[in-house]
């Protein structure tokens, strides 16, 4: 443990923490953009600065460890002036189109502008975009004009997903995030696997999900924690719905799950389109033995038909004559009931599922 002083008050904190972790742990607020607890430290955004009373320096709390006797100010005039200038600079290079931005209500930059009362930058506004929006693939839209270069997308890609699909390119004011050879994420040269973790990490609207555009902002959506049924890993996912429609799949960051830092694969992240697909079967079909054609039937008809057949087979050949294969595209509840039907209802252990990872 280390004894430190925060804004003049003494606190005893774990000595292996960063100042940021320690200070937040004690209930103080420090804004951040580039920091994420699951990623390595960047130190790039400079928002988390605090004043080190001893040296009189502004230091980044995310990258500096706690030391015994440390004394810091987290919200002095000097600190707030410096933070405000960082936000001011970011806003001077950011389109002010929150009204139509997918990230509205879920954007750290917007929160910071609100906090510092900046409805635009004191240094002038960005009128013309500097970059083109990249959206040649079906899943992820990248708008470099909204990027604040926190590098969280790169770090999650390199450190968690290990795809090495994106990195910074160019220098200075022209720096931006790009995939291999500055081509689209979906290009043949790209190693992107569309896990979507970069989008999850992005604190602004620079990275968004293409299928979710126009489907509602964060505050319109309901969250349902679920377990992905596509394979046996059992990743936790945050299914976001609006009305009765699944419109986005978010990450859940929780120790002890199979995907503790929000990992997902392309199927888990984007494979929900079938739910509302027009080609989907909506009524049962019964095959006409004469013609070989499937004909639409009512649920009562279909259930009667199956029930009769099941009883007949079970009588003639016993439960072991049944086998069932169920699908990842049904809900987990459906799959549970299916195995119940097989085991308890029909007395068979021959039940399997398409996800066999």
């Amino acid at each position, binding site marked *: 443990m280390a004894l430190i002083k925060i804004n003049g008050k003494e606190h005893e904190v774990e000595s292996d923490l960063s100042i940021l972790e320690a200070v937040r742990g004690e209930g103080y607020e420090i804004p951040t953009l580039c920091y994420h607890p699951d990623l390595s430290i960047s130190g*790039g*955004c*400079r928002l988390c600065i605090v004043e080190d009373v001893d040296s009189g320096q*502004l230091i980044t709390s995310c*990258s500096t460890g706690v030391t015994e006797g440390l004394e810091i100010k987290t919200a002095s005039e000097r600190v707030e002036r*410096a933070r405000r200038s*960082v936000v001011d600079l970011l806003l001077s290079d950011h389109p002010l189109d929150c009204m139509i931005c997918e990230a509205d209500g879920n954007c750290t930059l917007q929160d910071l502008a609100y906090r510092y009362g900046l409805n635009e930058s004191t240094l002038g506004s960005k009128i013309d975009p500097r970059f083109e929006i990249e959206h040649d693939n079906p899943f992820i839209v990248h708008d470099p004009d909204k990027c604040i270069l926190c590098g969280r997308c790169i770090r999650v890609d390199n450190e968690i997903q290990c795809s090495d699909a994106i990195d910074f390119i160019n*220098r200075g004011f022209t*720096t931006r995030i790009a995939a291999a050879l500055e081509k689209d994420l979906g290009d043949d040269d790209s190693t992107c696997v569309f896990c979507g973790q970069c989008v999850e990490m992005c604190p602004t609207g620079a990275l968004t999900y293409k299928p979710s555009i126009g489907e509602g902002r964060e505050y319109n959506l309901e969250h349902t924690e679920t377990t992905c049924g596509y394979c046996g890993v059992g990743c936790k996912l945050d299914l976001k719905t609006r009305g009765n429609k699944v419109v986005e799949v978010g990450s859940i960051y929780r120790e002890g799950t199979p995907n503790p830092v929000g990992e997902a694969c392309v199927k888990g992240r984007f494979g929900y389109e079938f739910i509302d697909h027009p080609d989907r079967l909506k009524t049962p079909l019964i095959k006409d033995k004469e013609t070989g054609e499937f004909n639409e039937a009512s649920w009562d008809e279909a259930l009667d038909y199956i029930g009769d057949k099941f009883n007949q087979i079970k009588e003639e050949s016993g439960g072991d004559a049944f086998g069932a294969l169920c699908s990842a595209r049904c809900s987990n509840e459906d799959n549970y009931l299916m195995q119940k039907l097989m085991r308890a209802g029909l007395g068979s252990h021959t039940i399997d599922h398409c996800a066999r990872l």
Partner: protein
Amino acid sequence: MKSLEELKEIRDKYKNEIQIRKKEFREEEHIHKAHVMVCTGTGCVSSGARDVVAEFNDELGSRNLEDEVKVVGTGCHGLCELGPLVIVYPEGTFYSEITRDDVAEIVEEHIIDGQIVERLLYEDKSGKKIAGYNDIDFYKRQKRIALKNCGKINPESIEEYFAEGGYEALGKVIDELSPEEVIEMVKDSGLRGRGGGGFPTGLKWSFAAGAPGDKKYVICNADEGDPGAFMDRSVLEGDPHGIIEGMAISAYAIGADEGYIYVRAEYPLAVMRLKKAIIDAEEYGILGDNIYDSDFSFDLHVKEGAGAFVCGEETALMQSIEGNRGMPTPRPPYPAVKGLWGKPTNINNVETLVNIPYIILEGPEKFSAVGTEGSKGTKVFALTGKVNNTGLVEIAMGTTLREIIFDIGGGVQGGKEFKAVQTGGPSGGCVPKEHLDLSIDYESLLDVGAMMGSGGMVVMDEDTCMVDVARFFLDFTQSESCGKCTPCRIGTKRMLQILERITQGDGQGGDIDLLLELGARVKETSLCGLGQTAPNPVLSTIKFFRDEYEAHIYDNYCPTGSCDELALPYWIDKDICIGCTACVNECPVDAISGERKEPHVIDEDACISCGACAEICPVDAIFQK
């Protein structure tokens, strides 16, 4: 080579070879008739030094003199502007601007007949010919420690380095001193980092030595990215073994067994000489396992840089060696604790390291006898800009700016008025006339808003616009920013945009305050030294030349006439004008009107100050306001 004794034997053997270049030896002891030292630094090579060497060899060969006269390619002498330079020993005669065609004459007259070739001698400001290398003002006032071997030995010959006492310091360290004693000596010398920060070198070594870990690294920072700087290049090209020896000593002191020299890929000659030097040292057993038959082993690699200014910043440099994009990382952790590949690492600049063998051999007292209270030893500067003698100079710390610029540099070109000197490269500041007597040391320069930096020194005369100077340096730093942190990436860009509008005549009231405010924020919030110092040229020019900024902004006027958009309009003196109409046709924007044979007038608002009219006027009736 197994011991210091063996080294001394080799040294003595080669010492005879080079004693002809030393004053202490009498003529009858000379092995050769003459040594012809041709500078083969990058500057002289680009002005034809290789041809001169070839010609000397041909000429001497054809006269069967090749055994009696030795032709030696050396490192840089500093006066690159006058290259190729040739020095002939035993006399030590200094010839400048030598071409192929001059070679036969030197061989014939000087080497064979013993007559100095007057025509090819260096000429000083007053037109006097000076024969002796050490009699030239430019050299006379310098103090050479870091550059002591540059120009004096053949950098591609490890034997010549031995002859100058090379690798004895390393032998002494291994044989007689503990790592702690070495660190104490470096501490006592007062040596501070020459890469820009000026951190005490011995203290830095003690951190790396004290850091726990069995694998440690040493790195030589030879990235030298400051525009116009070539101090380190000259050492790399002229004395590569000096750097290797310094590194080996630092490795011994901190307990490292592996090192990297991170050198700009734009320095091919330096890379080539370093690689050769490493191979030669390995062959003599001075690098590799069990050096001088001790437990100390040291392997050295050359890593060519990726050509970004920011890669000279130590954490970005290590990222680059590791194969990542050269972007700085926050400190702490410092390299001494967590450096290359997460291991304790000591990183020093070229010039810092090349001072080390001297300190060990001559003793820290001798080193610290030179310099000021807080800044010991010497510093190498690349003197450029509007000064008569541009080149590389090494001076004792505490020398004044006036001495460098006027005594060594020979004053301002064309007899113009001195205005300011920019020290510390793009991160430094401008020092005006009133501080010319400032002593050159780390603290004094910081006090006036400039800095030592790595040793750039640009002299500016009365025609230089200080706003434009600030814009120039900021343009460099902002485009070299790595883009990682917000204040540097966006802040320097915004500052540059303000400077651009001021120099283009669109300055706005409040711009100066805005620059001061932005500059202060960028300095205090940037991640690395690049951003933390980038505003310096702006802040220091505002501090000393605020009136120039104000003239641009409020009077729409550039006092030096450097900013095209702010040049003053032309006018016609109606008493002289003969109404020839020549100017009317010349004006590209039709700003001139008037009847034939009547005085003409220029519409000031339309005039773009191109001066075409004044040039064509047959009676010189047109003037600028």
